[in-house]
């Protein structure tokens, strides 16, 4: 923490650099890649709060994204409700879904892989549901009209979406920054490290975990609106894609779970690797293999992610969360 405060100046400079960056980049391609990096970092951060801080790994994080996307998009297509307000209902919808999923699974004591699987099941269930009801447009999907303007959260230039994603990412970093220095954050970490001890010391572990998944849900909901307004099309496989669930946990694990900048670092590295592999390797499928190999190497050799590896170099005695989880021996 203190370390972080000391670096605040440096960080503000970094934020400023990201804000002015579009003025120096004319390539639409790079703006789009950066937008995607921020978007994934944001979703990764939402996963990080429940997974990295509270230690509850979810495998169906996409459900909040998809539900948020449907909420604001259906409101728009059916009632003409402007997305700039719709996004707040998407946030509410995501949080509410988090409440339901969290209450049902945490109350019955689901943990570890069981919790991960139940979130996966919820996401799949919602996908099937979205496919079979009418108001989502079913399998045909929802088409949104292109009508740029702030009230629609649509922008003529890709730079508009760049800033939209950047703001989302800044907000997510602010949330986690607050977590790091707040009681709630300490309680989540205590739950991650040892749930029984946390409960014994007066922490309402059930309530804290539900709050954490609601925050994740709220954040995912906003991401859904962002996506729908950027791509103007939504169907169940997109809204509830397993791929996105995996991506948000992947960027966080690669970057470093339970750290403020893990998801951003992970998103940056993975997207860059992905783009480079795609650019230099022509054989179809081979770029994916290279991408996979790099993933294996990072996860296999850096159990605490890139940030964890960096920290270890900085302070040799400092051990980080994943180590401890495996070495939680007892006297």
């Amino acid at each position, binding site marked *: 923490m203190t370390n972080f405060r000391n670096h605040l100046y440096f960080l503000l400079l970094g934020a400023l650099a990201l804000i002015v960056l579009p003025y120096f980049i004319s390539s639409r391609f790079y703006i789009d890649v950066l937008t995607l990096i921020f978007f994934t970092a944001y979703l990764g951060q939402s996963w990080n709060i429940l997974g990295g801080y509270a230690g509850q790994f979810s495998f169906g994080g996409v459900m909040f994204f998809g539900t948020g996307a449907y909420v604001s998009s259906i409101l728009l297509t059916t009632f003409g409700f402007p997305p700039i307000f719709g996004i707040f209902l998407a946030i509410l919808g995501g949080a509410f879904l988090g409440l339901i999923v969290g209450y049902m699974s945490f109350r019955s004591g689901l943990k570890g892989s069981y919790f991960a699987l139940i979130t996966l099941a919820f996401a799949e269930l919602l996908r099937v549901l979205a496919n079979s009801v009418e108001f989502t447009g079913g399998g045909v999907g929802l088409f949104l009209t292109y009508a740029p303007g702030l009230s629609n959260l649509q922008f003529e230039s890709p730079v508009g979406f760049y800033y939209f994603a950047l703001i989302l990412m800044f907000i997510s970093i602010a949330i986690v920054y607050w977590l790091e*220095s*707040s*009681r709630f954050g*300490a*309680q989540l*970490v*205590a739950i*991650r*490290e*040892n749930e*029984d*001890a*946390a*409960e*014994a*010391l*007066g*922490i*309402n*572990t*059930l309530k804290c975990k539900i709050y954490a998944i609601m925050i994740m849900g709220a954040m995912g909901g906003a991401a859904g609106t962002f996506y729908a307004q950027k791509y103007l099309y939504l169907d169940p496989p997109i809204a509830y894609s397993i791929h996105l669930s995996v991506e948000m946990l992947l960027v966080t694990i690669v970057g470093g779970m339970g750290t403020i900048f893990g998801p951003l670092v992970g998103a940056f590295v993975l997207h860059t690797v992905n783009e480079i592999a795609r650019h230099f390797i022509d054989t179809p499928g081979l770029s994916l293999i290279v991408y996979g190999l790099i993933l294996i190497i990072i996860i296999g050799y850096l159990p605490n992610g890139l940030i964890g590896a960096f920290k270890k170099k900085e302070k040799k*005695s*400092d*051990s*980080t*969360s994943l*180590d*401890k*989880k495996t*070495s*939680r021996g*007892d*006297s």
Partner: protein
Amino acid sequence: MLKVNNVTKRFGGLVAVSSVDLEVNEKEIVSLIGPNGAGKTTLFAMVAGFLKADEGKVDFENASVLGMRPHQICKLGMVRTFQITQPFAGLTTLENIMVGAYSNTSETDLARTKAEEVAEVVGMTSLLNQGADGLTVAGRKRLELARALATDPKLLLLDEVMAGLNPTEIDDIVTVIKGIRDRGVTIFLIEHVMKAVMNLSDRTYVLNDGKLIASGTPSSVAEDPQVIEAYLGHGAAEAMAEGA
């Protein structure tokens, strides 16, 4: 302050705790002794809300705590430590103790101050910035004590905080526990180290095979033939001799 009434706990066919009655009064240090597997930890777990009693009543300050969750019981002022230490391994000693301190404040600065104070009381000041996973057995036991103390309990339930410590470390922790009592905290402790039991307790309960077989002052209990038999039967005669 704490009243346990006719409490029973079964694990399948095994009766781990069988119709136990006991009482802890304010400002007392009461100990619970007995051979391994006697049901001591199970009794603590029921009192602190970690296990549901099959029968009986548990009252804390004249109100039933049966069916409450551990965090609620902690908020009432009764907190347990774990025989098998349960540190937040990824955190420092300070952060561990702060988790306890947060039970009474949401202010990070206040929690830190409180944690530092408590560390002083249990003698962990020099270890504050050390990772909890790097602590020695003695360190971990102290950390259990410190975290629980940081919640500002009225009644502390200590489960074998001296197990695995050397004689010097035991003397140290006995002094710490006396100090905590002098600050007005009531203490109920499970202990195997007879010397410490003799030295610390106002009263002692003896549990064997889930049943209370004796209670009274430590010295009277130590002379009770039933108690001696229980221990001899489990080959712990030396421990008794050392204590008596």
